[in-house]
């Protein structure tokens, strides 16, 4: 086991991409942290991918160009890959492996923690049910998020998921919660995009409650695999040690999956669907399941990862397996975006699994669940009426079908659409909901209790 201090070997047997093969030293452990030192003294971080009695296979999280077999030195650190956590992480901008990018010295570490984390004992989890308000009507009313949930944004290239993520960072709040923190991890994003994020964080004054990790599109794929783990280690510390309510935004999981595939292929593993490794599900789960709450501890860890669907395909392995781990999804729709609706949230395929227990009297408002159910039912009718109208024309529709068409249009204009700097409280959002439902005849409101209709219908 890893009891020894650093040991070093000079010379590497094999170099291929980010993988190095080294003659093994007794005692070198699986997944141990390594440091590769090049001919000019440059230090590259890495870890042991596999180890036998004769060789250790090492992956390197930095560009390996120029490394030589004879002059490279490998230092085995004697412990698993770790990240230093401490209260001064807040306000910092770090690279994908956790080193400062903001010109300041490394944040002082109160403790070094293995980045893989440990599974929360399921019996110690507290069930998440405290409403988190994003100020965005479509999400708050119909895909309500709770503190400790994991819910991805399914988007596509060219859709405004970045603007939506920035708006969430600016607006997010929860009743009675003071200590909010955000951990933002860029996974393979273009530098132009991360610059826009940083500018927005600065402009809105959110920077001081943020920890930012930046793995850029041209950073090594191997580093991309550890970035979210560093970010989550930081987030767990802030949430479960310091009591912050932390929202983690991992952007973009699709790039992460690509990196995983790249490394898997380099290791010569048997591929599964579309060349992704067979352990893609378990690997994604090892990130997303780090969300949650723990009984008796004050903080929470909420995850809102962003997944850009490759060619808009929700059945692609990355969104598909993400959807199986996460507690719902917020789906952005290109057609809505083309019609100029921001944020273009498509309600019917979106879902929040933890919504039912997180809303209602004492959390949002007593009528919230009924209003949401009625809106889903109405939107399902809108969809049917629209597809019918596309075939037979609006004139041939029944009166009630035409009413639903009108409802659908007004829903998009009044409920979905909102300015990127507009924060709507849940009460304002529900008022809009009631206004829209008043378009429908009373007999259509089968999902709302009569007492609520009496109390809230204008």
């Amino acid at each position, binding site marked *: 086991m890893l009891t020894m201090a650093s040991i070093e070997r000079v010379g590497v047997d094999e170099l291929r991409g980010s993988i190095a093969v080294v003659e093994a030293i007794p005692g070198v452990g699986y997944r141990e942290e390594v440091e590769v030192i090049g001919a000019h003294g440059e230090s590259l971080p890495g870890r042991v991918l596999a180890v036998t009695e004769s060789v250790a296979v090492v992956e390197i999280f930095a560009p390996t160009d120029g490394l030589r077999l004879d002059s490279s030195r490998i230092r085995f650190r004697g412990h698993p890959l770790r990240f230093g956590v401490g209260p001064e992480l807040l306000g910092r901008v770090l690279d994908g492996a956790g080193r400062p990018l903001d010109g300041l010295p490394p944040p002082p570490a109160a403790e070094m923690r293995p980045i893989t984390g440990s599974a929360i004992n399921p019996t110690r989890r507290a069930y998440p049910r405290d409403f988190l308000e994003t100020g965005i009507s479509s999400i708050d009313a119909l895909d309500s998020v709770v503190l400790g949930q994991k819910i991805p944004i399914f988007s596509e290239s060219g859709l405004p998921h970045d603007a939506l993520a920035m708006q969430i960072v600016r607006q997010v709040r929860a009743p009675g919660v003071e200590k909010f923190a955000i951990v933002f991890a860029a996974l393979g994003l273009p530098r132009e995009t991360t610059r826009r994020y940083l500018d927005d964080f600065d402009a809105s004054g959110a920077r001081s409650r943020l920890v930012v990790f930046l793995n850029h599109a041209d950073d090594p794929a191997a580093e991309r695999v550890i970035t979210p783990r560093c970010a989550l280690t930081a987030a767990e510390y802030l949430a479960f040690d310091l009591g912050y309510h932390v929202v983690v935004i991992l952007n973009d999981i699709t790039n992460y999956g690509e990196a995983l595939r790249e490394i898997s292929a380099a290791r010569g593993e048997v591929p599964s669907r579309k060349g992704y490794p067979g352990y893609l599900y378990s690997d994604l789960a090892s990130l997303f399941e780090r969300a949650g709450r723990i009984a008796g501890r004050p903080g929470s860890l909420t995850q809102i990862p962003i997944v850009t669907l490759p060619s808009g395909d929700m*059945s692609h392995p990355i969104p598909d397996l993400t959807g199986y781990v996460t507690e719902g999804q917020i789906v952005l729709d290109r057609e809505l975006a083309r019609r100029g609706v921001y944020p273009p949230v498509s309600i019917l395929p979106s879902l929040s699994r933890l919504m039912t227990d997180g809303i209602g009297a004492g959390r949002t408002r007593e009528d919230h669940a009924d209003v949401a159910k009625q809106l889903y039912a109405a939107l399902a009718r809108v969809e049917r009426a629209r597809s019918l109208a596309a075939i037979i024309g609006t004139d041939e529709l029944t009166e009630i079908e035409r009413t639903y068409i009108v409802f659908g249009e007004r829903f998009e204009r009044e409920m979905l659409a909102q300015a990127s700097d507009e924060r709507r409280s849940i009460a304002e959002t529900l008022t809009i909901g009631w206004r829209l439902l008043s378009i429908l005849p009373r007999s259509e409101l089968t999902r709302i209790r009569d007492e609520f209709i009496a109390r809230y219908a204008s």
Partner: protein
Amino acid sequence: MSVLTEISGWVVKARVDEPLGLREVVYVGSDQLIGEVVALDHSIATIQVYEETEGLAPGDRVIASGAPLVVELGPGLLGEVFDGVQRPLGALAARDGDFIRAGTRLPPLDRDKLWPFEPAVAIGDDVTIGAELGLVQETGAIAHPILAPVSGRIHSIAGRGSYRVADVVARVDGHDVTMLQTSRARVPRPVAERLPLAHPLITGQRVLDTFFPLARGAPACMPGGFGTGKTVTQHQLCRWADADIIIFVGCGERGNEITQLLRELPDLVDPRTGRHLRERTILIANTSNMPVSAREGSIFTGVTIGEYYRDLGFHVLLLADSISRWAEALREISGRLEEMPAEEGYPPYLSSALAAFFERAGSVRTLGGREGSLSIIAAISPPAGDITEPVTRHAQRFVQTFWTLDRHLAAARVFPAVSMRDSYSDIPAGVMRWWESQIDPQWHSKRGTAMAFLEDAARDEEMARLVGSESLPDRERFVLRLAEVFQEGFLQQSAYDEVDACCAPARQRDLLDLFLATYKRGLELIGEGKPADAIVSLPLFANLQRVKSAKTLPAISDVEKELAAC
């Protein structure tokens, strides 16, 4: 000394210098991680490790246990939460804190807890194998018999009193008997005979019980893409299914879902016994971020516990969520073993592995002459919701009850989102006889009428999609509207509605009768020339949508009266 030679993920290799058996349990490294030997080649053993292998190094010791993977059985299982290799998660949390430590271990059953034992035999009695030696009140709801492991004479028997699970409570023909026993996880427990399936497993869910019933002792599978309500439906079954014991295996799924069950079960009361549901429930929680190899084992841990309670004479339901994650664990193991993959990377033995699991369901006469059953409901998470994928396709060959969850229904928030078109159940004759003798002599034909009505409606809907419902004749318009109302008022069932969450068979019949009466009288009225619009705009139609939440249902005569007045 056996030592590790190679570590890559959680499949490791060791050079062994002592005889090891295939599937023998070994302890790996200084933390003594639990592993199982999956292949032997001369002096090299390949070991599947059930825990995180980070930090293991070549040269670390491997210790043989001399025994295969076993499950501990006895009083104290009910109400507990175990991981895939039966570590007691509650006790571990009490000792280790909020996170699971690698190499941590505690016996599954508490060795110190005292159980009240009531002897049922006397010294000198002759008993046969499986005879009851005594009774332990395990929970308020369940009295747990302690059975004779062999036939023979009672040499000693403990008096009425409190004993620990490992205390000897009887001596039968030279064998010491404790309340604790072990059983191999991967081998089915023996039974005297399999019995024909003669009793439905009532789930309280109308769409399942009425249209696609499951027999006690039968396996079923429930495929559904993400977001189709698999888990909510499984939780509903966990709460309301008419079984003595429920085992819920959370196999590679979400941690919060286990928490939700843990939070709710103590609050829910079993309508039959008046006791808390937790008292009849065992949870196996191997969530998606817990080690994959233990996920593979969790199914066997669950099914072995299920067989044990079956052998005590209980009706047991095992819910597995989901076997796709289990199959993926098989695939990962197979990949690490560098076996030749078959379709979509799954190992060629996927089909046999699934069969071995589903075949452990059954209604049986036990060795002791009791009757018990183990039913299995396995959720499947087909990639992209495509049910032609290997796991669903193979599972289909071993089950007669198949509940497909439909993405479109789920998007419209129709739950349970069981597809009427893609689901089926090959109903055993005995189950239909039960409905006819206990609930309604006309059940077979009523169910048939309802199915035909829905089939009609599906056809009409396709037509409406082409020409618009305005252009349909009155009969079709009536059928179409009634089908909508039927979907909302009968098929759809709210898990969160106090009255509607669980619907007893007699109430299912009464509700169905209301719809069938409306259907029959409505068609007659149409035949008499009444316009469909006049009929479907009756208040009756709005009422039928909501009546499922009412404590008492209206009388059929009232329905007929309203229609007659139209």
